[in-house]
């Protein structure tokens, strides 16, 4: 097992097909409305006046596939009143269903919307990094399903060394808040985390 499991997403190659989202729902048999992995469509742009008086457009758009980032300083764990939300010895943020009261405070606090309430059991659920698959030496379902190989997983430090650290890409929040175990390869048009240039266009899907 990994010590600090992390996901890497390559925004240059992600086509927003949402196969990762479907694979996750299928693998974990998640009910309607519960999505441990979600794909954000982020776009923006406008007409920009050039120095010669003409106008050019700077329209941009890209996709961001996000599940739980198993953060180093998870706000869901800090907030949870019962200690049901915890980080295990393998670095995976998990919910202990023997304690969870279903207050949804973790959902209220997480800027990645990772903890998801399952009304069928009245408790919180979330990405468990497909721990069972990992024990069998297999990749998480979302990673295995990605047709463009935009999603990878591994040890955080190794991914960082391989792809470089860039988690300050919009629409992600400032990484200092929770220190996510996430490495992002930005695309050509990617905007900084605090950018006001774009909007999430598919909130109803998230």
């Amino acid at each position, binding site marked *: 097992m990994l010590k600090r499991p992390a996901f890497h997403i390559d925004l240059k190659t992600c086509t927003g097909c949402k196969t990762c989202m479907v694979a996750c729902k299928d693998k974990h048999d998640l009910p309607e409305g519960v999505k441990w992995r*979600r794909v954000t469509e982020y776009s923006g742009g406008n007409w920009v006046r050039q120095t010669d008086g003409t106008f050019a457009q700077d329209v941009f758009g890209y996709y961001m596939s996000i599940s739980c980032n198993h953060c180093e300083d998870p706000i869901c764990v800090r907030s949870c*009143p*019962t200690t049901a939300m915890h980080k295990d010895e393998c670095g995976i943020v998990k919910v202990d269903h023997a*304690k969870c009261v279903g207050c949804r405070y973790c959902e209220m606090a997480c800027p990645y919307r990772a903890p998801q309430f399952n009304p069928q059991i009245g*408790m919180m659920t979330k990405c468990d990094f497909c721990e069972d698959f990992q024990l069998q030496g297999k990749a998480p379902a979302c990673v295995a399903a990605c047709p463009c190989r935009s999603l990878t997983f591994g040890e955080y430090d190794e991914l960082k060394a391989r792809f470089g650290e860039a988690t300050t890409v919009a629409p992600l929040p400032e990484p200092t808040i929770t220190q996510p175990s996430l490495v992002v390869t930005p695309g050509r048009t990617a905007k900084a985390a605090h950018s006001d240039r774009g*909007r*999430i266009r598919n909130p109803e899907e998230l």
Partner: protein
Amino acid sequence: MNTAEWPLAVFTLVVQMAAGMMVLSELARMRAGAAAKRLFAGRDIVCFALGAVGMLISLAHLGNPLHSPFTIFHLGQSWLSREVLCTGLFVATLAVLVAVRVFPPLTRTIPFLARLVPLITVLSCLAGLATVYAMARVYMLVTVPAWNSPSTLLNFFGAAFLLGSLGIGLLASVNWTVSVPADEKGPGNWVIATILLGLALGLGLKFAEIPFDLLAGAQHNARGESILTILSDIGMPVFALRLVLPVLASALFLRVLIPAFKRDGNGLSAPLAVFALFFGMAGEFLGRLIFYSTHILMGL
């Protein structure tokens, strides 16, 4: 409007009201003595009922209420744990006060209990204030900028003093009507002045909150959600009603208190105080639902 959070809206408001009632009545009693005691008869039972009902209603918010005893397991980091503990202490101290009032033989069986009553009353007031503070801190999340500002503290303490003064005013007016001898002239300036001070403080804190809300109003998240867009979805008439109702409640309440202050023999009007509390509670309930609607999470 986020009506799904009605259990939280009711829970926070009734517990804040109970805390405000305890603090204001104790302040009045410290200066007014026996006269205040008679006017505030039944206070402990009313506050205990509010706290207990609030706690029971808060369970409706939980997906798995059977696990609620675990909610005090994370006092070191979670403000929600601290809120649950403070609320529990507040209601527990009120329960002891009610037990002493309802079963006077208890103080004969356990003599030192009678001596402890003033201390338990002070502890109850402090626990009430701590509960209101912890409640506000629960929502001051770094990931929700609209809530992570002094406006949440002003909102919650404002509600405690506004509803507390209306609540204790109603109780005093009912006791005045029912049990105070007809030849007695007025309920005492200190009592009235303390209730008026509570009302002014509550309303003042509510209005002091507005500039902070306006500052946060223009900030939006990556989804384009902001306080302004949410208020426009809810509708300006609803928001206007939320502002008008507490002012209406305060105006009605002044109509109850000012004649008593002048000691013109009219005393306190219980029916008017009922309307004042009704309008005050309706305005705060609407305001609390609007507050929960402004959960504008940064990030995704």
